[in-house]
């Protein structure tokens, strides 16, 4: 891997973590519960994108499976939390 690609991956990982910190601000500050759920969902998406970038960094397929798992668990978690906010219970 040349210096160009490894530096670009480092820069993009840095910007991803900056985005995660900004999302954490909204997660802690969020005036209502749905703001926090939205911020948590966004954190899951950014973590999944970071996993894919790390997979390119180490040229390994394992990170792809981790990213797929994060996407699935993020969907299930946000779905359950939104359902809880809507009805007051997760399973009707």
């Amino acid at each position: 891997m040349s210096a160009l690609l490894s530096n670009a991956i480092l820069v993009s990982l840095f910007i991803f973590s900056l985005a995660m910190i900004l999302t954490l601000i909204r997660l802690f500050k969020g005036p209502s519960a749905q703001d926090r759920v939205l911020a948590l969902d966004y954190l899951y998406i950014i973590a999944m994108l970071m996993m894919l970038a790390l997979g390119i960094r180490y040229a390994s397929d394992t990170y792809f499976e981790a990213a797929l798992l994060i996407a699935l668990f993020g969907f299930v978690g946000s779905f359950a939390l939104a359902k809880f906010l809507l009805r007051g219970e997760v399973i009707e």
Partner: protein
Amino acid sequence: MSAELSLWVEIPVAILLVFSSLFALIGAIGLVRMKDYFQRMHPPALASTLGAWCVALASIIYFSALKSGPVLHAWLIPILLSITVPVTTLLLARAALFRKRMAGDDVPAEVSSRRTESGS
């Protein structure tokens, strides 16, 4: 693992990765700076559509060049996101409407057939 790739493969991969992270950063800035909750629902879509497509395209280009054959499994991520993200967004919007209505805020009234029948 340390195979030397051509510069014409590495430049698009680097550009796509940096663009994807910039989209994620723009979405996070929007999430922090927007005033209303229903405005705040919009910026995360930037990362889950454009950001995910850019990273998946970079991954496909890189691994296809590395293994000198088409490696397409990274498409699964944007396809999965395009199915799951609208579902969570819709549910969160409905939950927010429900909670704001319960709190007595000024939001549009409920439009379900059951309520209109009992009202008329």
